[in-house]
């Protein structure tokens, strides 16, 4: 990474360093909280990056289902998929809330 020298009044930069250390010393913001944020963002990234893959997969599944599932079973199958998805969403939300409690 091409990063230049810090700038700003010398006195200010010194105060920023000291303040950062105070936050850690007093447990206001520790390294473990930083790591928790790293993990939270990584989880968010994984989930977001999974979406296009899931969409592609479900499109393929739907095409496949159209070929093999008899017409009369399709409403039942659709309801089943909808319920499963709702359950997975509820599960994801509860995990997110737990991560939020851990992060902050």
């Amino acid at each position, binding site marked *: *990474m*091409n*990063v*230049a*020298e*810090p*700038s*700003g*009044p010398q006195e*200010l*930069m010194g*105060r*920023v360093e000291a*303040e*950062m250390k105070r*936050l*850690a010393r007093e447990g*206001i*913001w520790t390294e473990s*909280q*930083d790591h928790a*944020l790293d993990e*939270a*963002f990584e*989880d*968010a*990234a994984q*989930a*977001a*990056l999974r*979406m*296009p893959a899931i969409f592609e997969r479900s499109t393929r599944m739907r095409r496949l289902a159209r070929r093999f599932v008899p017409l009369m079973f399709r409403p039942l199958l659709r309801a089943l998929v909808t319920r499963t998805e709702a359950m997975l969403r509820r599960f994801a939300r509860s995990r*997110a809330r737990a*991560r*939020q409690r851990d*992060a*902050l």
Partner: protein
Amino acid sequence: MTTAKRPSRIDQIIPSIIEHDAVSNHTFEAQRILREMGFTSVIYASVIGPGCAGRVRPLAELPLIEDGSQWVLYQASIGGPAAEVFARHPATKLLDYHNITRPELVERWLPALAEEARLGRMQLATLSKLCSFAFADSAYNAAELDALGYLKTTVVPVLVAQGNIAFPPDPVALSVLEGAKEQGGADWLFVGQIAPHKAQHDVVRAFACYRKAYDPKARLHLVGREMGFTYRDALGRFIATLGLNDAVELPGAVPTAVLASYYAMADVFVCCSDHEGFCAPVIEAMSRGVPVVAYAAAAVPETIGRAGVLLTKKNAPYVAAAVHEVLSDSRIYDEFVKSGHVRASHYSVENAQQTFRSAISEAIAPS
């Protein structure tokens, strides 16, 4: 490369053009100045985005005038077929480089964009042998051109249209933001595409720390169009996970007057980008009296100079502490507002226009 006579028209080619985008605004402003200088000048683009129809012609319509009276200026910021059309065109060639994002910064999120960036860098290298003169937004960008073998390079800052700097705030947006401010808390602002290399997630991290350590009522506004869906989605999930949905706003691309309202109400402009070829919003912030705290990557240190806080790392407590120090010390705050105005005037529309005029005059002067 040919030594050409003085052109009567300087057309511009740009891969894609869209509203509320620094390179697109620069291209329109360049067209205005070229016309003022007496040249016929039309913009041609492969992709014409919303708000640009009628002002830009499709690339396929680019005329071919072989008497040497036509020159073509290519606005380089990404790879694509436009560069090939430019390369094949027999006119004398000028190139204006706005930097191309390093592919590895976007690869994970936007693989197609990473490919375009990779192609763009290859095309940029090829074009070095064909261009008689090149402009670059910053010395940082000019150094990249020099390394690729461009013979004549000059720095011409981004031409920020006068309207963007002086536009009055939208009263409705302003009253909404004022209403929120009455509840207390500082307003953080970052303006730029919602994109992985702009690292809005690092701004959010620092903001979460700032709220916890100093100001639980603070708000963050991340203004800008989303570049692809996945990073925006991840950012949204991250904000939700941190319980910051009520404190972080992502209004998308906004009209100039609404953007002016955000600048008017901002207490600090925080930039954690990993890559910026110039960073025009920093100039807009400084010209509107908003102090800047930024990660010192790519061209950002050159754009800010000594008129803002430049950080060599961007871990959450470091950025949060820097913002806190700026906002809690009125002497420091005023100093940055003052030096920001001075720095912004260095990049004033008048200065940038004059530099552009001089660069064009130098380029067309007989060698």
